[in-house]
C-alpha cells in the first residue's frame, strides 16, 4: 500500500488488490472494511492499475472509519476489500462533454474524464472545492481535459463561486453544444448541477454515494427514488440520470444516521486518547 496526503483532510491510498483491479473500470466502487469491528464503507475507485494489481482510493477523513483508515501505514492490511462493484460508466464518443468534480468527488471523476477523453470526446472539466486547501489533482485533471475550470467557494484559487456558474455559461454558449454532463461530488452539488442542466435538456449523469451495507444488492439501504420507482445504487448504479433522481428524499436518507456517526467518532477519538495515554504510560 502506498499513501499520499492530498489535502489537510484528504488522503490517497494505492491498495494491493489484484482480484479487484483485474476487472475494474471507471465509475465503479469498492467496499472497504478496516478490521473485525469495522463497518463496510463504499468508496468510488479513483484509479486502477491492472498490471500492478492496485486500486487507488481517495477519501476525506470525516467519519470514524475514514479517520481510522487515514491512520493506517504502508504494510498494514485491510480486513476486506471487495469489488469492483456497480456498473461502469458508459464510455462512448458523445462529442463535447463536461466532467465535474466537487471536493473529494474530484477523485472518482478523474478516471471517467480520462476514459471519455480516450474515447475521443472534447472534454471540458470543472472542479471545485470550498477552499484552495481542499483542492487536489488539478494537473492530473488538466492532463485529460481539453479545458479545465477551477473554482473555490471563497475565491482562494481559480474562480470564486460554485461549479454551477461556469457550467451555466458553457450551456448558454451555443457554440459548445454540450452533449452530456457528468457530476460527482456532495449530493447537494450534484442536485444543483442537475437543476442547472435541466432547462437545457442536457443529459446529466451523477454518481450516488448512499448509505450501504453489503454493496451487492442485499440490504436495499442504498435505495433511491427515481421517476420510475426505487432503484438500488449498488447494483443498478452507482451512476444515474440525475434529472430523474428525487434529491430531497436522497438528502434526507443520507442524514438518517448522523447522530450515530457523531457518536462513533466521539467514541473512537475517546478510545484513541486512552490508548495514547496508556502507551505513554508504559514508556
Amino acid at each position, binding site marked *: 500500500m502506498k499513501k499520499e496526503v492530498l489535502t489537510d483532510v484528504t488522503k490517497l491510498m494505492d491498495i494491493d488488490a489484484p482480484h479487484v483491479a483485474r476487472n475494474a473500470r471507471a465509475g465503479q466502487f469498492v467496499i472497504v472494511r478496516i478490521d473485525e469491528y469495522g463497518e463496510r464503507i463504499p468508496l468510488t475507485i479513483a484509479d486502477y492499475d491492472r498490471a500492478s494489481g492496485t486500486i487507488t482510493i481517495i477519501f476525506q477523513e470525516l467519519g470514524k472509519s475514514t479517520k481510522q483508515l487515514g491512520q493506517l501505514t504502508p504494510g498494514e492490511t485491510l480486513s476486506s476489500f471487495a469489488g469492483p*462493484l456497480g456498473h461502469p460508466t458508459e464510455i462512448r464518443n458523445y462529442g463535447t462533454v463536461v466532467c465535474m468534480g466537487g471536493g473529494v468527488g474530484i477523485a472518482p471523476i478523474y478516471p471517467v474524464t480520462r476514459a471519455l477523453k480516450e474515447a475521443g470526446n472534447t472534454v471540458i472539466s470543472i472542479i471545485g472545492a470550498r477552499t484552495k486547501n481542499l483542492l487536489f489533482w488539478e494537473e492530473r485533471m488538466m492532463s485529460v481535459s481539453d479545458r479545465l475550470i477551477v473554482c473555490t467557494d471563497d475565491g482562494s484559487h481559480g474562480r470564486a463561486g460554485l461549479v454551477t456558474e461556469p457550467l451555466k455559461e458553457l450551456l448558454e454558449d451555443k457554440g459548445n453544444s454540450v452533449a452530456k454532463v457528468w457530476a460527482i461530488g456532495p449530493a447537494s452539488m450534484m442536485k444543483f448541477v442537475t437543476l442547472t442542466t435541466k432547462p437545457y435538456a442536457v443529459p446529466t449523469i451523477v454518481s450516488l454515494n448512499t448509505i450501504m451495507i453489503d454493496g451487492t444488492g442485499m440490504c436495499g439501504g442504498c435505495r433511491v427514488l427515481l421517476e420510475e420507482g426505487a432503484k438500488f445504487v449498488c447494483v443498478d448504479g452507482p451512476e444515474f440520470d440525475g434529472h430523474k433522481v428525487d434529491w430531497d428524499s436522497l438528502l434526507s436518507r443520507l442524514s438518517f444516521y448522523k447522530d450515530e456517526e457523531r*457518536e462513533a467518532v466521539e467514541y473512537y477519538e475517546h478510545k484513541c486518547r486512552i490508548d495514547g495515554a496508556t502507551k505513554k504510560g508504559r514508556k
Partner: protein
Amino acid sequence: MMAGLKPSERIKIKRHPMPNQDEHVRRGNFDEVALGYAPETAREEAERCLQCKDPKCVQGCPVGVLIPQFIKALREGDMVQAVKWMKIKNNLPAICGRVCPQESQCEGNCILGKKGEPVSIGRLERYVGDFELAHRTCPLVKAPKTGKRIAVVGSGPAGLTCAVDLGREGHDVTIFESLHGAGGVLIYGIPEFRLPKGVVHNEVNYAVECLGIKIKTDHVIGRSYTLDELLAEYDAVFLGTGAGLPSFMHIPGINLNGVMSANEFLTRVNLMKAYQFPDYDTPVKLGKKVAVIGAGNVAMDAVRCSLRLQALAAQKNGGEQGEVHIVYRRSKDEVPARREEVEHAGEEGVIFDFLTNPIEILGDEKRHVRALRCVRMELGEPDASGRRKPVERQGSEFDMEIDTVIMALGTNPNPIVFVDADGLERTKHGTAVADHETGRTKKKRVWAGGDVVTGAATVISAMGAGKRAAADIHTLMKGESTWD
C-alpha cells in the same frame, strides 16, 4: 441405558421439552434461546424412537439423514458411532438441528406423532452436532486426489454442502464468497440467539480444514470474476448464490427514513453486530414502535431482534422498552414461520396483528415514518398457493402509530452473478433454470442449487440441492456420465 424396552413402554415416555433461557431474561440479550439437551435427557428422548423398519422420518428429510441409526447409537451411549451415522448424510448437523423446520419434515412424519408427540429428532441432531464440535471424533476424510478443480460460488447452506461433499470425494474445491465471512444467510440472516455465529464458524472451519477447501472472501462473482472466467480455470462451477435481493411493497412511503428491508436490518444486527455499537462500527436505528411486515422465519428473526435491541437501549439509556408488531395479511393458521420461532416470539412479547394489510406508510415533516395505514382483511377462497386468499374488508382502513417499518416480504436471486454469463437461463422470477435432481443449468459445466433456483426457501432444502448437485458433479468428473 434402558435396553430392551417394549414399544408400548417407549410410547409412554413423554417428549422432553427443550430447556430454554427464561423469556424475561432472554429478551434483553442476544444469547442463544434454546440451551440444548443434557446428556441424560438426550438419551431418554432417544429411547422414545420405535426404530421403524420403514422409517418415514428419513423420507421427510431433504438430505435423508439416517435418523433411526444415529438415534440408536445415541441411546446405546456410543456417541462416536452416532456422529458417524450422522455425517454420512449431513455435514452440518449442529446447524440443521437448530434451523430446520422439523415439524414439517422428519418430525412431521414420525409415527409417534400420529397419536402423540413425535420424537424430538431435531434436538437430538443438535445434540450430536454439538458433541462433535466439542470432541471432533470423526474428521471428514478426503478421498485420494482426483485432480479436478471445482469452483463453488457462495458459502451459504447450498454452497457449503456441495463443497464439503465434493471435498470428501477428493476434488480440489474453492469457494468464492462476496461478503467478508463464510456462511451466507447463516451469518448475515439468522440471528445469534437462534444460531450462534460461533457454531457456524466452528462447523464451517472444521469441515473446510479437514478437506483442504479454500475460501476466497470478498470475491464477487459477476464482477471480480465472471462466470465464464471461472469456467476457464475450473472443471465445474456450482452456483449457490442464494436469494439475497429484498422485495419492497409497492406502497407509498417506502423511501421514508425508518423503513428498511429485513435484510438490511438483520445484516446490520447479525453480520455487522450492530447490537454491540459503538464497539462495532455499524449502528442500527430502531424506534419505540416497530412493525415487521410478513410472518415468515425472516420476519420472526427481525421482530425478535427488534425486541432485544429495544431492551438493550432501555437498559443503556433508561426509558420504556417500546413495542414490536408482526403485521400479516393472512391469519395465524397460514403463518409460514417455523412453529418454535412463533411460540418464542409470542412468549417474548411480540404483538401479532393478523389479517392486517399495510397500504401506505405515512411520514412526518422530516420524512420520517410516523404511522402505518392498514386495512383489515378476511379470508376468502383458496388461492394458487392453496391458502385462503385474504380479501380487504370494506371501510376498515385505520392508522397504526409506528416509527419503524421492517419489510420481510421475501427475497429474489441476486442478479450480479448473471452478469456476462451467456447461456445461463433464467425464469421470469430471476431464478436460475436448473434440473431438480442434478442441479444442471442450461450452461455447460455449471450447476446451481438452493434459493438461486427455488427462490427463498429453507436452509435444509438448499443443503439438499447442494448435495444432489455434488453427486452429479462427481459422476461427471469421474467420467461416469456425460453432460449431453
